[in-house]
């Protein structure tokens, strides 16, 4: 590499060419979607999940335990107040007695009600569509917990120790599914729940960029009829469900 100065020149030239703009905002060759480590997130990508309930096994909770492991959520033996970022729900149709189940977590809405009601701006939507709580400004009022139609948020009631280095959490603030934001920023390209579901052989959870027509999630969304939970609220969630 270092022995051939032309390579360096060609690389620079290619990079310069890629950046040639036809008009403001339109590039001849779109730069790679992967973000450089020091670069801020942009709205060019929108992360989301597709949950295929036909593949989701009743009684399986691999996604829930993977989430707890990844984010260091520990069970204090108090199910009414323990933090829960993802849960399995069982659905049954009383007419046909068809039964199936699905995981429900923060739906990462494009128009999140939790952000609308937050008095401090702690509940916010990142440019790439991930809805998060900034614990530095959260005062623990729990308005967002009330506002969320998916019951996706939890409040931390107890002092915590032994948090994961990538997932800081503590008493007095609200939390919820982060779409494994630390994994996304690291470039893993998946979430703990999706990984575990695939490892368990179900493959019911697909993670990806909803804005990229070539992504696995966009391809599956084109094939499968899917819907948003509580589509009547028009929140445009980033999590879609097939077969509900």
């Amino acid at each position, binding site marked *: 590499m270092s022995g051939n100065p032309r390579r360096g020149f060609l690389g620079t030239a290619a990079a310069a060419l890629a950046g040639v703009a036809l008009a403001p905002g339109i590039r001849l060759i779109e730069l790679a979607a992967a973000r450089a480590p*020091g670069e*801020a997130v942009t709205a060019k990508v929108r992360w989301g999940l597709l949950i295929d309930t036909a593949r989701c096994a009743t009684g399986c909770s691999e996604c829930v335990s993977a989430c707890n492991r990844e984010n260091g959520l520990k069970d204090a033996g108090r199910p009414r107040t323990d933090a829960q970022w993802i849960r399995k729900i069982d659905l049954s149709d009383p007419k046909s007695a068809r039964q199936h189940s699905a995981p429900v977590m923060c739906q990462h809405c494009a128009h999140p009600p939790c952000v609308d009601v937050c008095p401090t701006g702690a509940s916010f939507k990142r440019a790439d569509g991930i809805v998060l709580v*900034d614990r*530095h400004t959260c005062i623990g009022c729990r308005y967002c917990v009330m506002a969320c139609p998916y019951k996706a948020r939890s409040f931390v009631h107890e002092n915590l120790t032994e948090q994961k*280095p990538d997932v*800081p*959490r503590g008493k007095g603030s609200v939390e919820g599914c982060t779409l494994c934001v630390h994994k996304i920023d690291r470039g893993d390209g998946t979430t703990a729940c999706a990984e575990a579901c695939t490892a368990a052989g179900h493959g019911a959870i697909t993670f990806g960029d909803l804005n990229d027509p070539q992504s696995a999630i966009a391809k599956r969304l084109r094939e499968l009829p899917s819907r948003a939970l509580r589509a009547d609220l028009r929140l445009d969630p980033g999590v879609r469900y097939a077969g509900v």
Partner: protein
Amino acid sequence: MKVFAALLALAAVLAAGLAFAAGRTAKPVVLIERPGQCVEATEVMRRDHMKLLLHQRDRTVRDGIRTKPQSLAGCVDCHASRKTGSVLGEQGFCQSCHAYAGVRLDCWECHTPKARAQAAGAKP
């Protein structure tokens, strides 16, 4: 002459008293276990580390910028005690100074005070 002697005696007593006081003053323990270049000069870090952390915190949470230089986890990895693996504890890098200055440390209510290698259960 007598006055001079008295003054001299007074000075000696004062000096002894000062030396005694200096010995009794609690000083923070600043253990640099991994010597080398910090992200900024020592003087800057002593005075402005909280400003750097505040700036980096918003960039990380809001913009997803997790580059090394001023990350809190990076601070912990380098400054955690080899003995306890933590920046807390009586001789902990953060705690000993903050106890001395009387400034409350809020970071560790949510962030882990343990170095990443330690947190994962590995030996450094």
